[in-house]
């Protein structure tokens, strides 16, 4: 008879209890946005389209942006596939940025980056719903997932028109 080794009794526990860090990372709002992303789809009259890539995991985002007369974000949509963090981040971002000026977008980009990376930073109220992403700061390996859509929108502003690609890894 083939005998396998035994291991720690706790491994054989009957239940798997929920873990606070997991619930903090994957808040209900995040799970909801990842299951039903908002502003997901095509934007036929987009001024600029950015293909964002996270080569470490194969996640992709296609971001389409239309500007208003003053250069602000009139409309923004995304498509693609990826983990719950990258999808929810993109969904929440598009909701937040629609109608914002360039300066406001850049300000939010920096505030959001601090939110997901800086343990000591106090989340500014202006981030609103985006503050649910704060749990990412405890998972440094997931920061790129959270930042993918933001890197794409940064590129869209820089580019202004046409098509562009952006990657979470330096190429």
């Amino acid at each position: 008879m083939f005998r396998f080794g035994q291991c720690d009794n706790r491994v054989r526990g009957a239940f798997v209890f929920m873990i606070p860090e997991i619930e903090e990372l994957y808040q209900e709002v995040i799970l909801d946005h990842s299951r039903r992303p908002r502003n997901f789809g095509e934007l036929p009259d987009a001024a600029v389209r950015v293909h964002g890539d996270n080569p470490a995991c194969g996640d992709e985002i296609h971001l389409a942006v239309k500007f208003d007369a003053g250069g602000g974000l009139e409309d923004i949509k995304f498509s693609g596939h990826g983990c719950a963090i990258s999808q929810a981040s993109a969904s929440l971002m598009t909701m937040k940025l629609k109608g914002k000026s360039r300066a406001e977008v850049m300000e939010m980009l920096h505030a959001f980056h601090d939110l997901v990376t800086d343990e000591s930073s106090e989340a500014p109220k202006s981030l609103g719903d985006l503050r649910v992403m704060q749990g990412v700061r405890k998972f440094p390996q997931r920061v790129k997932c959270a930042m993918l859509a933001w890197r794409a929108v940064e590129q869209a502003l820089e580019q202004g028109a046409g098509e562009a690609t952006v990657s979470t890894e330096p190429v």
Partner: protein
Amino acid sequence: MTAASTIDWNTIREDFPILRERAHGHPLIYFDSAATSQKPRAVIEALRNFYEHDNANVHRGLHTLSSRATEAYEKARQRVAQYIGAASAEEIIFTRGTTESINLVAQTWGGEFISEGDVILLTVMEHHSNLVPWQLLAERTGARLRFVPVRDDGTLELEKLSSLLTPEVKLFAFTYISNSLGTINPVAELCEKAHSIGALTLVDAAQSIGHLPFNVRELGCDLLAFSGHKMCGPTGIGVMYARAEILDSMPPWHGGGEMIVSVALEKSTFKKAPHRFEAGTPNIAGAIGLAAAIDYIEGIGRPAIFEHDSQLARYAAERLAELPGTRIFGPKEERGALVGFVMDAAHPHDLTTFADQYGLAMRGGHHCNQPLMRRFGVSGTTRASFYFYNTTEEIDRMIKILHAAVRFFS
């Protein structure tokens, strides 16, 4: 009575100090041995012993320690030769690992013998380390790459081999065991077919070297590459095996100390293999650690290890199939010590982050297999990979954690 049934796998776990670690307050379940295996105390002690008692450079000092270090280093080479069934220790070149071994061949052998119009035959399931070096060679020389396709069940489309193996094929390089699918390729058959049209064969043995017994002369491969760290050895040491006559035909790779016979200002002459390919101070401790790993593995016995590991993998595949919305990759019957899967409920990165919080270490992503992932229409998978220190209880625990993940993410 099977080979594995005579072994007390419980006691073997105690040889691995790291298995007592906890992650996020839970007992560690290490299911990432395909990335790197854990190290038994015997290997850790061998490294420590070398640095505490024998450390010196090799092949150059006339003092006591240098003799001891040289002897231990060259003994390690003999141990490796014996372990893989090479005709002699001179056929064993120490490298940093599988990747460096394949690059060495691509650059030296490839640079010498591959030219425009030649074909390197690979498979769609190759790890990037057995793909990118050949892409670089092809770009440099004008050679072409050709690929054996992979069936839906994760095996190679062997019926296509005869049409792919045309006279332009100079080398057929393929993996022994797929690091994403667990497929065990019929190496001897592939080598025989390649030889029938005069092509050489290179086997990427990274995933098989510590798991199953084999002999390079019985397999009939011309070249074989592997890493020490996936077989209980240290990182930074690996091996390039090549038949002596192939090594003799290959020009040096890196130039420097240790690989020369004599050096003048304008020109040098070079040692024979293996030293011709080992410029500079080698990873002496690494080679000694690798020999200790071989001793350790042989102490258990590769047939028993293979039996144990593949039972774990089959059991894991069976249990994973119970989970809702789960797609399992790779052959159903015979498979190496790993299972790749995707779940409708969650992306591989979310699953691995979730599992890690329960002390379960798995890998999520493309596993350096991007073309293979594309072939199966996924951007990545979650991979649970096993070694002889893993248990069915750990797999049962994994299933519970994954059930919790399904409930959480759906």
